């Protein structure tokens, strides 16, 4: 109980001698160890788990979650949350599909169907950011309302009809380059760019400042409103990209909101070590988190565990990783006090 009332210092492990060792076991390292360990154990039980095909599937399937989780991580670091992302992915992938189907008849190039959802995502993000930053409505309320609006709008628009006969060239998520599926490139490149941006640029550091200590951020001349706008727009763009990856993975688009998708994305961030209280977390962690929540079900399938228990294990996993993170931070805080 006492630890929660103590302000938890952000990652400053480099200069801190006592915590250098625990810095080695950051949440990212823990996650990577769990992923590797799990793969080794399941691979020993059933060698087919480690076949390139399966690994490719796991990485490819976790890509769109990981990309969306990059935006979510930034939003949560500022101390906010966005639960409308699942509905956004449902809507924007349908937008992408609709534009793609009309491309030939409309006489415009196919890439329009990839770009428009990303732009719309950015606009929705800007609207949410405006409501949160300038009109001071809590993000959870704005995104709850936005979720209803987008979900209802999608049903009203499509009536739940599936989109078939999508052009073959539309399916970027099904393509591969050098034997690696394209979504994986998106995941890796966007994660690295976001990580570098957040770590080394003033604008990136400002995100942590706003989430970590509002007053200190204000005194150092950071505009909280501008940072929030920026973060929500980036989140919208990331969700737009994720929607294209999501919508192009199968030959049909269901035109519905995948149930629980927003919680899946938040879970990836949280498992990746992002503190829901703001100020702490990295996108490398959230990407590893997204991969981990896809490794588990696959591992369970190969270890012959009933698929029905999949979600229960996932729930347990969140609790365990969050507990590890919490205990580690508590020990760090103690080490610092001594």
């Amino acid at each position, binding site marked *: 109980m006492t630890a929660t*009332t103590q302000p938890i210092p952000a990652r400053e492990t480099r200069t801190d001698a006592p915590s250098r060792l625990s810095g080695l076991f950051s949440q990212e390292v823990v996650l990577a160890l769990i992923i590797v360990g799990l793969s080794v154990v399941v691979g020993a039980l059933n060698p087919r788990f480690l076949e390139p095909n399966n690994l490719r599937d796991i990485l490819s399937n976790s890509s769109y979650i990981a990309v969306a989780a990059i935006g979510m991580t930034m939003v949560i670091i500022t101390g906010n949350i966005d639960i409308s992302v699942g509905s956004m992915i449902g809507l924007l992938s349908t937008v992408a599909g609709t534009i793609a189907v009309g491309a030939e008849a409309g006489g415009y190039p196919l890439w329009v169907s990839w770009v428009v959802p990303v732009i719309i995502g950015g606009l929705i993000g800007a609207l949410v950011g405006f409501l949160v930053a300038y009109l001071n409505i809590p993000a959870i*309320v704005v995104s709850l309302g936005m979720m209803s*609006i987008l979900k*209802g709008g999608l049903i*009203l628009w499509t009536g739940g009809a599936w989109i078939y006969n999508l052009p073959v060239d539309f399916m970027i998520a099904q393509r591969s380059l050098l034997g690696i599926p394209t979504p994986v490139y998106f995941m890796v490149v966007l994660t690295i760019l976001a990580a570098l941006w957040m770590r080394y640029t003033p604008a990136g550091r400002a995100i942590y400042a706003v989430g970590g200590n509002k007053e200190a951020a204000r005194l150092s001349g950071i505009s909280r409103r501008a940072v929030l706008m920026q973060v929500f727009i980036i989140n919208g763009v990331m969700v737009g990209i994720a929607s294209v990856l999501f919508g192009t993975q199968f030959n049909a688009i269901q035109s519905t909101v995948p*149930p629980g998708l927003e919680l899946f994305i938040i879970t990836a961030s949280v498992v990746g070590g992002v503190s829901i209280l703001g100020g702490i977390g990295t996108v490398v962690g959230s990407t590893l988190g997204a991969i981990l929540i896809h490794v588990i079900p696959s591992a369970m399938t190969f270890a012959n565990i009933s698929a029905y228990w999949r979600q229960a294990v996932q*729930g347990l996993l969140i609790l365990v990783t969050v507990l590890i993170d919490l205990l580690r931070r508590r020990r760090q805080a103690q080490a610092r006090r001594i």
Partner: protein
Amino acid sequence: MELASEKPREARRLVDFPLVRGLLSQEGVLFVIIVLAVAVLASQNERFLTTRNVMREATLAFEVAIIAMPMTFIIITGGIDLSVGSTFGLAAIVLGFLWQDAGWSLEAAIGACLVTGLLCGLVNGLFIVRVGVPPLITTLATLALYRGMALGVSEARSARGFPEWFLEVGRGGPTLEWGTASASPTAQLLIVVGAALLFGALLYFLARNRQRALGSGSIEVLPAENGAGTSRLITGILAGALIAWAAVSLFTSETGEARSQLVPWQILIMIVIISITGIALSRTSFGRGLYAIGNNETAARFAGVPVGRYKLIIYTLSGLVSALAAWVFVSRVTTTRSDMGSGIELDAIAAVVLGGTSIMGGSGTILGTVLGLILIQVLKSGLLLAGVKGDATIIMIGVVLILSILVNNFIQSRLRPR
């Protein structure tokens, strides 16, 4: 605020009158919107304001309504419970599984269903209070965990074929046979409106006298106390309307012939739970403690509020009520499925927030949540009767949710004392 201070001092602004001030509270605004919406919908469709339709809508709102009560407690303390829908599903599955597959008696299975909900809530509470995991994360994890357990236990099988007595809770209720006096619809309406206003005024003046006895309304009090008079007024109007409406629909009919009217158990259970939680929140030290926790947890702890125990109680209560809702729901739909109740957490949270409870904690009332629930159900029902597709009505709810907070923020910033 700045604008107001530039003006020369006035003797008394319009908003300084307690009645005006109260009407501009979230509850007041909601109440006015509801009255307008009901009036419009009733004039558009004669089936809207019938006893049968009102009872049906109340029955449909039952699950979300009772889950929203402990949710109000939790959000007032600055927490949140995302796992209620999954608890709902797990409790329903436990009921069906133990009865159909494990061979338990149905009574024991119902007991186990409620105990399951209690334990789910207790586990949430223990993680939040003892381990110190933030409520959002704890309940996000248990949302997946409990739903996963429901899936794992049920393996996508469903239980059906419940005996007749079990279906009574969800479909039956006491049947009342009265209604010999004759009254025209206009007379009925007048009686209801008159009684509502009378009752409201009575409670309002009682509250004001009490406040005067305490020594003017200017004492610094907890946020809940602000505009206590109005919330009393609205409670009075609502209660008066309910009682008068019940009496009118029971004792009178247009023809003067006796009729029988089934009152669903859901409505009775709902009234009991709303009354108990409402009184607990506004009249007990437990309720005061919840506001104190939401305003400043550390200060509450130093002031001797048993923070840990209170939190444990509200999360456990939330689990228990979710299981109760599951039991009644299973009885109504006569089957169990592992995906039952998914998304119900967001409906409940929407009602609570719409009712003016701050998501940051520290303020909110049960009355507000009830008004939020009524508005959502009125909109759903009204739009459905107007021919709008069912799923599209949720757009309206989203818009109303954001707008109501916007309007309230705007009004409150104007109302702040100079």
